[in-house]
């Protein structure tokens, strides 16, 4: 009964989305005096549609929580003996549920826009909501006609199939919703862009509206990608954190586009330039997130992360992708001529720096795109089957990323309109010297002699110090008396600190990557109880082996004692787990944090005669790899809380317009 109710709410939500789409588009054709009425209807429809869809999703959650095995997807993906948290997480651990979540986020964001978008021009708002509804109609139609999550089974089994054990993990339970918030969060900038083209409103004010939504999507995307990477690191037991796998690339591409969009929207908002480019980026960024969804869902690419794969349904996602991209881009081709371009600037200027940032990010995006889709293209024309591996991406991505990162702190120092490169460099000379000194200290401590590692550490420190210096410079440290500067520092806008956090995060990430590629130590050894292994100055002693049983798995646990220079640091355990209902085992790794590095141990093959293979790694500064993105995400959210810059100063805009 509950399931039917859920399905009913789903269908009703679809119908209302259809209605919202039609009514929302009417103001484009109608006279202005009808706009308020039509806009109000669209607004309410958006809220109602989201509530119904949320109801449907909550019902699905309840059904999963109560393990209702009359539903097909619950049988396929859940199990009564599983902890409640993972029963709930199983709701989006499958194709139907995850697509439902996808459409729910589209609708919720639309509802948020209609509730908090009161300041927006009514015609523009209702057009945006109509586009948002169009997306909802496409995805909901897809669910209702091909992937009904509420499908019943005729014969009800007493037990379910269980969720893939690798997915029974907190990081992976949170990762898909966060990533989806990022992917789908980009639907709002997309709808904004389409509405801007339809209503011919692409100006500074538009950029001001679109920025917080982009920021939100970007922060979620950053967090989602980092969480996925951390999951792969400790759950797959391979010790790696990024494999340049198609599914990873699928999330990296929209991230690159959104990062570019975030920066170009600043230029558009502050200077009225790059409007046309920003609109294009907003369209493309969402296209890439749909492409990402398609690649992951269709299983068309060989990937280590292929979950919930279904090629036929993939085709429908491809059709949706085509419709919105073809529509969006042709609209852009016809209408982008109307976008006003103001704010002429010299190549060496803040605008120029941000544009260069955009160009480099786009080119990086192109290389990832080519590397990810090239095998697909070659396969499609029937030439041969091939795969593009990590070396390709390392050789194309890194040489482009390095100049971008070197220039980042310098670009931050450039004033708008016209700047002098040498003057900016002069302001940074102390930052550079300090970074250089830190690098030397680093090298003295580690005694490593690899020139590339030196350069990478220098780059990371340069970014971190550069970010800190930028905010100190804004507070005018070194120009006015320090206590005045300190007061200025406290009065600076939160958005300034947000920028610092995000850019610092990039530096921290670079440091983590540098340390991991230069100083990582690995040791594989066959051991029996009582054996010792030494790694990077640490000593691991194999204490014992235990068999343990939990509610939904059995495991063989190996306990180890970690010590350094005779000092006991604690116990570490690694295990081979066998989940009920699934035949293949999984590996649980043991981790010990040593400052920002980690000792990482994992069982390899369990051999005969009580011999086990143990893989141990010393991963220096590995936590920086996720701390960096965490800082970026925090920066994003901090910037969202800064409302000071968001209130549109209409008087100032009018004045500006008169001057132009």
């Amino acid at each position: 009964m509950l399931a039917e109710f859920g399905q009913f709410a789903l269908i009703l939500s679809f119908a209302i989305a259809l209605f919202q789409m039609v009514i929302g588009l009417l103001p484009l054709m109608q006279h202005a005096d009808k706009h308020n009425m039509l806009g109000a209807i669209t607004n309410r429809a958006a809220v109602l549609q989201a509530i119904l869809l949320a109801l449907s999703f909550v019902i699905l959650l309840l059904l999963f929580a109560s393990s209702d095995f009359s539903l097909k997807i619950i049988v396929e993906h859940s199990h009564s003996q599983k902890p409640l948290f993972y029963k709930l997480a199983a709701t989006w651990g499958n194709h139907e549920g995850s697509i439902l979540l996808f459409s729910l986020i589209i609708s919720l964001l639309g509802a948020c826009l209609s509730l908090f978008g009161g300041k927006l021009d009514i015609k523009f708002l209702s057009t945006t909501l109509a586009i948002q509804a169009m997306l909802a109609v496409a995805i909901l139609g897809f669910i209702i006609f091909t992937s009904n999550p509420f499908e019943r089974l005729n014969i009800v089994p007493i037990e379910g199939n269980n969720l893939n054990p690798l997915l029974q993990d907190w990081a992976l339970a949170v990762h898909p919703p966060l990533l989806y918030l990022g992917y789908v969060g980009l639907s709002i900038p997309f709808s904004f862009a389409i509405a801007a083209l339809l209503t011919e409103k692409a100006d500074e004010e538009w950029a001001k509206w679109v920025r917080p939504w982009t920021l939100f999507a970007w922060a979620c995307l950053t967090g989602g990608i980092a969480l996925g990477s951390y999951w792969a690191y400790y759950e797959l037991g391979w010790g790696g954190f990024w494999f340049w796998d198609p599914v990873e690339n699928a999330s990296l591409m929209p991230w690159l586009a959104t990062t570019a969009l975030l920066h170009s929207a600043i230029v558009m908002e502050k200077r009225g330039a790059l409007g046309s480019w920003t609109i294009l980026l907003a369209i493309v960024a969402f296209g890439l997130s749909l492409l990402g969804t398609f690649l992951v869902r269709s299983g068309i690419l060989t990937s280590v992360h292929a979950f919930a794969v279904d090629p036929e349904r993939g085709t429908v996602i491809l059709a949706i992708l085509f419709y919105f991209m073809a529509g969006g881009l042709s609209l852009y081709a016809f209408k982008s001529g109307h976008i006003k371009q103001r704010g002429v600037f010299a190549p060496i200027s803040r605008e120029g720096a941000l544009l260069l940032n955009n160009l480099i990010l786009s080119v990086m995006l192109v290389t990832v795109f080519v590397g990810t889709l090239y095998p697909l293209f070659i396969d499609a024309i029937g030439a041969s089957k091939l795969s593009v591996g990590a070396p390709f991406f390392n050789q194309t991505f890194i040489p482009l990323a390095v100049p971008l990162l070197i220039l980042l702190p310098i670009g931050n120092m450039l004033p708008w309109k016209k700047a002098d490169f040498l003057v900016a460099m002069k302001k940074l000379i102390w930052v550079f010297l300090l970074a250089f000194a830190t690098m030397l200290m680093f090298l003295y401590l580690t005694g490593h002699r690899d020139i590339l590692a030196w350069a990478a550490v220098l780059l990371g420190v340069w970014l971190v110090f550069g970010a800190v210096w930028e905010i100190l410079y804004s507070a005018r440290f070194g120009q006015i008396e320090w206590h005045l500067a300190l007061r200025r520092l406290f009065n600076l806008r939160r958005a300034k600190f947000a920028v610092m956090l995000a850019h610092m995060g990039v530096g921290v990430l670079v440091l983590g990557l540098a340390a991991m590629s230069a100083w990582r130590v690995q040791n594989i050894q066959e051991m029996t109880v009582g054996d010792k292994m030494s790694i990077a100055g640490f000593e691991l002693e194999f204490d014992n082996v235990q068999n343990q049983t939990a509610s939904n798995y059995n495991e063989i646990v190996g306990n180890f004692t970690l010590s350094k220079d005779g000092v006991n640091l604690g116990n570490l355990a690694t295990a081979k787990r066998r989940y009920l209902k699934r035949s293949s085992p999984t590996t649980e790794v043991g981790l010990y944090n040593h400052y920002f590095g980690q000792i990482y141990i994992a069982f390899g093959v369990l051999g005969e005669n009580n011999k086990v293979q143990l893989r141990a790694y010393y991963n220096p500064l590995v936590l920086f790899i996720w701390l960096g993105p965490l800082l970026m995400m925090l920066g994003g959210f901090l910037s969202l809380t800064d409302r000071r810059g968001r209130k549109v100063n209409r008087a100032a805009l009018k004045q500006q317009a008169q001057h132009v």
Partner: protein
Amino acid sequence: MTRKQQRFTFIIVGLALLGLATGLILTAMEDGISFFKTPTEILTEKTDSQKRSRIGGLVMDNSVKHQGSLLKFDITDNQSELKVEYEGVVPDLFKEGQGVVLEGYLSQDKIFLADSLLAKHDENYMPKEVADSLKAQGHWQEGDTKAEVQKVSE
């Protein structure tokens, strides 16, 4: 600086960057790409051991041997058998009868030296290339992956 000059400058910079990227992509294609082959294909064609390949097949029964950290096994496409040596992380799902995808080089004495071994998270999952080549030989039926679901619902 006029708007025309501005646009011209940026187009030049953009094109230069794109050219750079093309160059990078083309050089990286040299050794960043590996072609997918079946055991039969790699054994019959003229060997070019410098070229990286990607091999897919089923792990043969009773062929898996561990020698210290070295893993030895045979894979098959039901036509030819290929000896494989691999050193590194063995995925949990690796077992006899399982479909795997390997990357590496063929040695002079026809042993495939793999540096990457891929078996999927999902035990129902068959690497696409393997499925395609098995399909081509009629060893694969649509719906095989759904067997487990059917068992439960029956």
